[in-house]
């Protein structure tokens, strides 16, 4: 058994009187692909927002053990989470539309830059070399994802599938230990979904990352995930291999209603 990377320990999150996440605990181990599923409004994105520290006022603890052992993420600012090797994508693709694809990747490398604004203004040797090195890195990732040829085009006007790819490419720029994907297959056609499946495998292999994803496309989730966490109304239902999750009574009820 490999070592646990992300630990949620009794996490709860309230919005006013509404309990969006309710005493949720689960663990993601290093090298796993874990899916987080649940009906609409089950609080999946809220879980992600807690993990990535967009919401700070959650109860319980979230630990991440990449850079240092069992680090309490609450001690990280939302902007420091990426330094720990934890990076995410968004449900409705959040890219900079009026920057080129390449530049969007460089945004993802923001925390990799050592030089400051003064050396950028003066274009010192160090600043130029750093920019060049990160560009090379971006080229490599773009080639790997097969979008190298269009690197200088604006993001605006790209097909949805390509934008999803750019967002994934952007996460890779920060040398992530763990990537959190919020509905990566939403809005993709069947062929693109298949492609994404292969891509996620390859990313895991090549970049040696752990992946946690939310997805509604059950076929996709069942195919790709090592383990699946099912939640409903913010509550933990089950965590198991895809096969067993499919057979789980509670999960079936959550999806189909108790009469089914």
């Amino acid at each position: 058994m490999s070592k646990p990377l992300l630990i949620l320990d009794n996490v709860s999150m309230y919005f006013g009187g509404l309990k969006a996440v309710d005493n949720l605990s689960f663990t993601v181990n290093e090298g796993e692909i874990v899916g987080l599923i649940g009906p609409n409004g089950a609080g999946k994105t809220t879980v992600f927002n807690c993990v990535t520290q967009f919401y700070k006022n959650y109860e319980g603890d979230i630990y991440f053990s990449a850079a240092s052992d069992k680090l309490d993420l609450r001690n990280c600012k939302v902007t420091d989470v990426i330094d720990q090797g934890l990076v995410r994508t968004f449900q409705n693709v959040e890219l900079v539309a009026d920057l080129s694809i390449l530049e969007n990747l460089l945004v993802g490398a923001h925390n990799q830059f050592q030089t400051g604004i003064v050396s950028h203004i003066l274009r010192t040797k160090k600043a130029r070399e750093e920019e060049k090195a990160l560009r090379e890195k971006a080229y490599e990732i773009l080639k790997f994802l097969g979008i190298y040829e269009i690197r200088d085009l604006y993001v605006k006007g790209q097909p949805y599938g390509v934008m999803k790819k750019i967002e994934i490419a952007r996460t890779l720029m920060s040398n992530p230990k763990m990537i959190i994907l919020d509905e990566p297959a939403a809005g993709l056609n069947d062929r693109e979904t298949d492609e994404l499946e292969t891509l996620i495998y390859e990313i895991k292999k090549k970049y040696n990352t752990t992946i946690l994803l939310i997805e509604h496309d059950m076929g996709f989730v069942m195919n790709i995930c090592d383990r699946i966490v099912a939640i409903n109304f913010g509550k933990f239902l089950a965590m198991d291999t895809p096969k067993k999750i499919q057979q789980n009574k509670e999960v079936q009820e959550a999806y189909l209603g108790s009469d089914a």
Partner: protein
Amino acid sequence: MDILNKIERFFANISKQLSERPVLTFFLFGLVIASIGFLPHTGLIRWGTMGIFAYIIIFSVVAMGLNLLLGFSGLISLGTAGFVGAGALGLGVFMNMGIPFEIAAVLVLIISGLLGALIGLFSLKVEGIYLAIATLFVGEILRQIYTQVEIFGGQAIRIGSVRFLGFIELSMINQMQRSFLFLIITGFMVVMMVVMHNIVKSKTGRALMAMSRSQHAAQAMGISLLKYRLTAFVLATLFATFGGVMYGLYNQNVPTTAWTLDLSLFVIAMVIVGGLKSIYGTFLGVFIIYGIPNLWLKNYFGDISYIFSGILIILVIIFYPHGFVYIWYDLKKQYNRLKAYLSQKQVTQDE
């Protein structure tokens, strides 16, 4: 047809060369502008025309700063005039105390920069129209101080001749020296263009854009709102103040009443009409908003020229919402259409 292709190839080649060497392009652009400073000696243009170009140069620097704010960071400031005034009047006050030009300039830049940082802090709390009007408050406070506080000396502050770099005495009154002053501010403009270019093509420029397009995604990428809001406002105020310093250096007599909301709005108009996120677009905007009326329209129409400027602003915004500089793409499109049409014609003729 062949001629068209040849011309096209010629220009494509030049533009490729130039776009690969942006700094060289800025320098060449500066040379062209600088030559205006020596034309009055030949009698080709009037001294007044050179003065108008001096203002265009100064406003370009101010507007570039605002473009960093408006175009790249999606933030607005209605207090720009206050900071230009700070640069010009502050320079005057310090120089009248006997402080050399360079040190006085650095001092006002530091003071303004700190004020800008304060606004940046403020912008973390306040957004949209509230932030815009908060900056208007700052502008109004500064304006009140300039017009009512005694050290700014009533109607205007006289700076008099400036000892540049400690040994070159330059006075506005002497025609040759005025040309040199023009040359110096052109040089400053080129430097600021390079600075702006280097900023927007660096991590900072990308971070500013990421922050304005999606705060959440930017934060997830490790972009601190605090740091980059401050950066945006400090840069904008520094550019504006530097524009003011250039104003003081060139005019050597600074009015206290000129730094009103109208001026701030004009600077915004320059950025929007010219082109958001574009350095040359900013210059173009200044030329359209300030240059065209003052160079030509006012001579023929007097005050009525405001009507033309007003209509021009309205039309440009309706038809080129991202700035007039983007007319270039339309022209290219038209040109390609023309070429396609011509080649088709040729084919039919050949048949």
